[in-house]
């Protein structure tokens, strides 16, 4: 007996196939995609007027384990992820201790195996994420590392960054750069401008990001190494990538769902859940990010899911840690892009096959004979994201009590219904 997804509207980003198709899942894999597949003996999910897409792939999240299990564990993070439609998530190495060696990478990998979706560890670029000595890439890859990043920290030493990029020529995994001049951004807690001036909060200029984006691109050009730029937030960064992508094939970049939705205005009132790194910028920047998605400059959308406890977030805006949770609000925020003229199939590409290609993994598509990782959602259901609905262990979201449009109904991972909204 298998699972038959019936009458759904399939959007398949790898082949571009789109339309009403049935999908039969048996033994973890997609057995058949076709019209009018007989339902005899199968568990049928009726998906009339629903969208069927590959499970979402997030290449930027923080699961906090090991070290901060009070904020999130790999298991609770995976629960939050599958409720948001994800079947593959890639977690950053800024844990305690960090994922800068084979032991900690293996730990996360194994915990991931026991969680609700695929968890792919990202190793650190440098030991202890200090930007000083290269970390052992090959032993981490052996234990499951799919990319390398010192996320949260920028590698300020350009020579170290150069070496790290050179090694990608050998191991073929991307370097995910948190591009930020940390001397320029030092002490800053929000975008620098009129609002930071009014609120009396130390600002982070856009240039802190743009200078390092330009540097990283130049180093990618110098080395031919594989560079992926994390969470771009400014018009200048998007322009720099656009300008260089014309002739450089080794650079990709991402944007978060919250930077596509919010601006620095969300900080007014000192809302600690509007404190993120990099900071929320201006409306002009936000629109430029959407433009970058549209014209293909930006390759994918990520969550940058970053759980923090209530106590930490309530310690005053300047003291509060950066970051918000992101899995559960991700789909409705991404669907808002339709209002800006981005087609649904384009959006799905940027949250499935797009990010999977960056990691060079066989994910983010629905294909006969391949692992069945599928999400079924209704783009029109409106619902309110209240505190009791939050699956993550932490509740730090600026979207609390927002009316959201678009809801995940089923998440199927390795052929099993791992999450359904009907529970």
């Amino acid at each position, binding site marked *: 007996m298998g699972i038959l997804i019936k009458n759904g509207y399939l959007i398949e980003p790898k082949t571009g196939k789109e339309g009403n198709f049935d999908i039969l899942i048996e033994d973890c894999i997609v057995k058949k995609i076709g019209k009018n597949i007989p339902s005899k003996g199968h568990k049928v999910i009726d998906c009339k007027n629903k969208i069927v897409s590959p499970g979402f792939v997030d290449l930027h999240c923080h699961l906090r384990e090991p070290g901060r299990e009070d904020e999130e564990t790999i298991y609770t993070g995976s629960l939050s992820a599958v409720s948001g439609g994800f079947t593959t998530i890639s977690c950053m190495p800024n844990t305690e201790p960090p994922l800068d060696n084979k032991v900690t990478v293996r730990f996360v990998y194994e915990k991931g195996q026991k969680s609700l979706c695929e968890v792919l560890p990202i190793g650190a670029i440098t030991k202890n994420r200090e930007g000083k000595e290269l970390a052992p890439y090959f032993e981490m890859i052996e234990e499951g590392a799919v990319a390398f990043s010192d996320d949260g920290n920028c590698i300020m030493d350009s020579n170290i960054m150069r070496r790290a990029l050179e090694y990608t020529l050998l191991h073929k995994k991307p370097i995910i750069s948190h591009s930020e001049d940390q001397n320029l951004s030092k002490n800053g807690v929000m975008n620098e401008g009129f609002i930071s001036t*009014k609120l009396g*909060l130390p*600002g982070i200029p856009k240039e802190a990001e743009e200078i390092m984006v330009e540097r990283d691109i130049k180093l990618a050009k110098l080395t031919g190494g594989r560079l992926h730029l994390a969470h771009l937030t400014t018009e200048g960064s998007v322009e720099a990538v656009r300008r260089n992508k014309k002739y450089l094939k080794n650079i990709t970049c991402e944007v978060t769902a919250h930077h596509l939705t919010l601006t620095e205005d969300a900080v007014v009132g*000192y809302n600690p859940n509007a404190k993120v790194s990099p900071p929320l910028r201006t409306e002009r920047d936000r629109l430029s990010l959407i433009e970058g998605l549209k014209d293909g400059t930006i390759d994918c959308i990520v969550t940058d899911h970053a759980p923090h406890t209530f106590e930490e977030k309530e310690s*005053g*805006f*300047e003291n509060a840690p950066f970051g918000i949770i992101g899995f559960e609000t991700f789909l409705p925020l991404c669907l808002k892009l339709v209002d800006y003229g981005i087609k649904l199939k384009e959006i799905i590409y940027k949250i499935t096959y797009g990010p999977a290609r960056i990691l060079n993994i066989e994910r983010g598509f629905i294909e006969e004979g391949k692992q069945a990782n599928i999400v079924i959602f209704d783009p029109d259901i409106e619902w309110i994201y209240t505190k009791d609905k939050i699956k993550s262990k932490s509740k730090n979201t600026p979207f609390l009590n927002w009316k959201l449009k678009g809801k995940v109904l089923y998440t199927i991972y390795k052929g099993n219904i791992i999450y359904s909204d009907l529970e």
Partner: protein
Amino acid sequence: MEWKRKDLIGLEDLKKEEIEIILDVANSFKDVSKRSVKKVPALRGKTVVNLFFEPSTRTRTSFELAAKRLSADVLSFDVSSSSVAKGETMVDTAKNIEAMKVDCFIIRHFVSGAPLIISQNVSASVINAGDGCHEHPTQALLDLFTVRERFGKIKGLRISIIGDILHSRVARSNIWGFKKLGAEVIVCGPPPLIPKEIEKTGVKITFDIDFAIENSDIIYLLRLQRERQKENFLPSLKEYSFLYGIDRERYEKIKEKAFIMHPGPMNRGIEIKSEVAEEERTLILEQVTNGIAIRMAVLYLTIGRKI
């Protein structure tokens, strides 16, 4: 117009009329401090708590005297920054004290926004006594009061605020206050200490102190924190003093009917030379005196609104 607010967080939110109410009420309270019995029963039976997360003697004393002259009971509570590390949040601290049935918190905090957050979590009144680099509303109100008393008006005057605008809550509150009451405001200081897009508040920017002092009715000097030099905002204190300090020569250049103001405490020898600080055309001690009347008015209006 009538005063309706529970709290005073900043001048940015206040309407011109609300500022005028405070100034008018302060005017009627000013006499109390001149009497031999310096007390009125306006807030008898009310409890006011000074909750200071950042050390301050002058502002605290001024609030304490203001509350006492209104017959309120006053408690001063110094919360060292280590209590945050002990695990109690600032909201916990305030709620704990509120559970003892107090009517008003006067809050000074090193973090911008702290009084606002506390005010949203307690039903007692909250008066901001200075938060981070955000606002210091009672300082600006006493400055407005002092200027109005001296000049008989505020509208049409030109005030230059000089010094470290970037880190100054006094500057921000004064910008809002003086703009709302119709004055022209110029900010002046070394470029690294002028915050981005400050001109959107309607102020003009100049880096030239001589231009500022020659063309202003009020020269408002800010205190320069010595740490700014270590943070590389200035090459040296000596150079700052040379570029932006008021010495005898600059004092001679101020307009005939102009005055120098300073929120205190003065850094003698840095933003102002000693011989000038003692001069006739400074309003520094008047500001301190008027501080009591302003704080009485603010306490009376915020706590007394329920009466």
